[in-house]
């Protein structure tokens, strides 16, 4: 979170107002993209890429995924209805192991936007996304959840006995 804030603070002057239009998840996405762009070996090129990206974002020329964080009223009508369920994404952020989080969320988002939504429509895409969220948490956090259940059982037994 602090890393994200630091990344967003590094936005070149004169471009800060662009970030004001974005929601929390939108800012998270922008921070991720900025991190990618800043990772370039040539600092001057990285600076140009960041400026170019921010200008595109302001002009609404970026991809739907990037502008998904823009408030609903600012979105073009054609892009509505294909948002990734925000709560589901937050659950994944919260519960998945750090080492797979970014890749797994990216995979889900890519498949939802490029295959599931165009083929089956927004309703099915959302239910598909939620199914994947629940099953993925169960698969990757089975031991963690099992320990949680055991702890709850132990507490229940203790409260019954003492």
């Amino acid at each position, binding site marked *: 979170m602090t890393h994200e804030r630091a990344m967003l603070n590094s936005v070149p002057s004169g471009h800060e107002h662009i970030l004001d239009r974005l929601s929390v998840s939108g800012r998270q996405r922008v921070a*991720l993209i900025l991190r990618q762009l800043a990772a370039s070996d040539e600092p001057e090129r990285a600076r140009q890429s960041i400026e170019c990206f921010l200008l595109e974002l302001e002009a609404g020329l970026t991809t739907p995924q990037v502008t998904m964080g823009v408030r609903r009223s600012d979105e073009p009508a054609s892009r509505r209805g294909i948002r990734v369920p925000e709560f589901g994404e937050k659950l994944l952020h919260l519960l998945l192991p750090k080492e*797979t989080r970014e890749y797994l969320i*990216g995979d889900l988002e*890519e498949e939802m*936007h490029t295959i599931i939504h165009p083929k089956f429509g927004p309703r099915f895409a959302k239910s598909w996304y939620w199914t994947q969220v629940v099953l993925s948490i169960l698969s990757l956090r089975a031991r963690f959840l099992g320990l949680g259940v055991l702890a709850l059982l132990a507490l229940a037994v203790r409260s019954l006995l003492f």
Partner: protein
Amino acid sequence: MGKEERLQQFERVVLQALLQLGGDAYGMTIRREVARRNQRMVSIGSIYATLARLQQCGLVTSHPAAASPERGGRRRRCFRIQASGVRALHAANAATKATWIPVAMVGAQA
């Protein structure tokens, strides 16, 4: 008993998918290939859990790849099967063949 022979069915399918997809295999493509082979829904989480196990065994390697806009600027993690993975797959398939009894023979014995 070596780790090749302890490969579970799902791990075997994931390794086969990696072999089929070659160097461009990443979460989404692997999930789709495994779902196609299994003819049922597969969660991306189970794919990552299996890949982590295979990576721990040294059968698979991975490296982060560039981000793309359709992923909301997130990076991909590309997976590649190692020579040890191919050997493990061959050994597991050979073990299955060795213990396989045709259904017709079972019927005749009964």
